[in-house]
């Protein structure tokens, strides 16, 4: 499905296609230059090629799988790759494939600054955004049209607003988690207008009354893989009321920002307005406050922390999450996986037991 869609985009719209590694990147710049971003969250399952063996087993499965995928034979339709400066492993994978073979097409990099907002970071971020835009302009062979960039920013604001609406008013949405996340995750490869259209269609499932009667939980983690997790939650009588997945809720800029005179400055502002992500923030407290507010605002009663094994930025924050929510009296369940296609029976049992615990306690939902 994804492959057919990408081929169609190339054929009918003559769009260049960039494979994009997680997490944060200025998709608006790609849209303005008519480049289709296809995000590479793995892909899940066993590595699709021998190149995974070029990395040690203690490197996360996302990077091992992405390395195998990019060095494999299945990327003919991709014209280049964009590596955001997310973590040591993505950084290392980028130099491995470029310097030691496995990727011959154009490579782009985006260094998002780390730390709290301050003058040096803002100045740098604007310069970095402009630098990326210039490189991508060369790639597509035309100058960046500032009006096109403003329109792209406005389009992605509408998308973020729609995504935030679907997640934020979850209890009024007559749609299973599996269906909702399928729609949301199609944004990883759909052209923005197509994605917005699907989001609008999904909004048709809003009801005036509360329709989600299960146990509301908050979920935090890297990427919702395997997607079967939502089915298990649903069958156990729970639903995701609040989302902090790096690939989903954590990338939503909550408020609509006006596109200013300098669209690059607006993109930089948006970056700082986004929810705190451990790959960017230097203050654990700010993230814990955000998660606490998210939890309360959506009436969640328990937290599932769903992580990729060996993912340092995420795993370092787990003790703080555990502490924050245990002080609130909210149970926390840690799940670690390796981008498997299926959840193991053991994990399913742990999720079921966790939901049962939530249901039996004073936090129990209405199911």
């Amino acid at each position, binding site marked *: 499905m994804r492959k057919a869609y990408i081929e169609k985009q190339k054929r009918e719209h003559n769009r260049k296609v960039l494979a994009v590694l997680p997490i944060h990147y200025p998709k608006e710049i790609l849209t303005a230059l008519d480049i289709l971003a296809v995000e590479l969250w793995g892909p899940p399952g066993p590595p699709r090629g021998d190149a995974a*063996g*070029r*990395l*040690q087993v*203690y*490197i996360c499965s996302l990077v091992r799988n992405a390395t195998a995928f990019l060095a494999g034979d299945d990327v003919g339709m991709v014209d280049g790759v964009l590596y955001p*400066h997310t*973590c*040591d*492993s993505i*950084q*290392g*994978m*980028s*130099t*491995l494939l*470029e*310097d*030691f*073979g496995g990727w011959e097409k154009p490579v782009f*990099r985006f*260094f998002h*600054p*780390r*730390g709290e907002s*301050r*003058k*040096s*970071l803002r*100045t*740098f971020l604007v*310069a*970095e955004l402009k*630098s990326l835009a210039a490189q991508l302009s060369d790639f597509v062979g035309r100058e960046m049209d500032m009006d096109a960039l403003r329109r792209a920013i406005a389009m992605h604001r509408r998308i973020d607003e729609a995504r935030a609406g679907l997640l934020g008013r979850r209890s009024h949405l007559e749609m299973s988690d599996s269906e909702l996340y399928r729609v949301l995750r199609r944004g990883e490869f759909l052209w923005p207008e197509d994605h917005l259209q699907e989001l609008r269609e999904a909004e048709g499932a809003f009801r005036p009354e509360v329709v989600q009667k299960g146990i509301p939980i908050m979920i935090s983690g890297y990427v919702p893989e395997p997607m079967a997790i939502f089915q298990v939650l649903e069958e156990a009588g729970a639903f995701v009321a609040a989302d902090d997945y790096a690939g989903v809720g954590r990338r939503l800029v909550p408020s609509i920002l006006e596109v200013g005179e300098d669209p690059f400055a607006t993109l930089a502002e948006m970056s700082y307005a986004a929810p705190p992500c*451990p*790959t960017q*923030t*230097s*203050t*654990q*407290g700010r993230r814990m406050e955000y998660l606490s507010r998210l939890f309360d605002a959506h009436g969640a009663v328990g937290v599932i922390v769903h992580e990729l*094994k*060996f993912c*340092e*930025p995420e*795993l*370092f*924050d*787990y*003790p*703080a999450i*555990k*502490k924050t929510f245990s002080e609130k009296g909210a149970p926390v369940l*840690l799940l*670690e996986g390796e981008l498997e296609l299926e959840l193991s029976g053991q994990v399913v049992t742990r999720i079921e037991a966790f939901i049962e615990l939530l249901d039996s306690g004073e936090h129990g939902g209405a199911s």
Partner: protein
Amino acid sequence: MITRRIQYEMAGRVVGPMLMSLERWQKSRRRRGGKKKDTPFGPSLESVRRLKELMTVYYFKGRYADGAVPVAWVTSGFPVELLRPLGFYVVYPENHAAICSVQRLVPELSDAAEAEGYSRDLCGYARCDLGSVITKKTPMGRLPKPDMLACCTNICQTVLYWYRSLAAHFQVPLVLIDTPFVFGEAAPHHIQYVKDQLEELMEAAEKIGGKKVATEELEETTRMAVEGTRLWGECLAAGRNEPSPWTAFDGFFHMAPIVTMRGGEECNSYYRGLLDELKDRIQRGIGGIKNEKYRLLWDNLPIWFNVRELSTLFAENHFNFVCSTYTDAWTEAGSRIDPADPIGSAAEAYTYIILNRDLKNRLDLIERLTKEYKVHGAVLHSDRSCKPYSIGQIDLKERLGEGVGIKALVLEADHADPRSYAREPAENRLLAFMESFH
């Protein structure tokens, strides 16, 4: 404050050195009449004693630092010479964790961190340090509480996550120097970004230090740092001699002053003494091991808890590690630092650190070291605790064999945690590797 300052100064200038003299005297009495063990190593470096004394006094003084002087906990790639003129006492959690690892304390300290929720898959230094903070256990008696945490991401991103946890624990400011990874050459706006952050660092440090830094003072400590790295580089270069007057394993321990005391006279004086001793050994034909037949390069951090055993295994088989990419890292920065432009040159120097550069640069470095040190083979320590240093080693091994023409082995281990190291299978592989040279 005054009492604390007196305690701090007394600890560093009087009590610490006095305790060291006492220990020296006791040791010399014990040694009298004792039979010397037969080892495959050359005679011990006299500098080992000086190193031990220097570091012991340094940590001893640190027990009294908080409340006396501003205290910063810093990462090993941080431009610490910029903090020196402000009178900061600096703690290097990485150095402290290495000491804990040598003393085999990491499992116990890591257990404490794991009980709080830190995964065993995280860096062993970080787990050890966080465990030490949680339990307040340290082989150094006591570590001073920081007034500031100073973290530079030029060695890895892990330090940011680790220091963020420390900042939350101690409730003190975290000053971050975020260094964009260098692919080929750094873009001008990347260097400018680091420079801007260093200027912000100075403002924050001056606020905590309670005084303004005079330009001349900054230039002087920078000049001292350059001199220190030059001296350290010369000590390492002594390994080019055949036989090498010391081993890279020795170098792992002797790098402590350049990491922790860079920019100070104590550091430079120490390396002047070490260099004299190494030169003297070269002149007298004394090697780090008794019978050096093969010369090797070590890539990545050492396996701290197993250095003695590993070095003995190699020395017994007449293999000497004469250089390492790790110890070389502290010579690189110095060559780019200009005392006339402490901030601007530091921005460039600390961005172009080996771990912040691409794999092509790493391969070039290994190739250069291989030629300069006349190396026959390399051991690439695939370090479970250090992903950025380990990524690419499987390809590096192939390239060393095919392109550079030396034998290489990837050794699975961990720089801090013995629970991630299977000693017997590792030693069997190393023995087979050594046999392949005959």
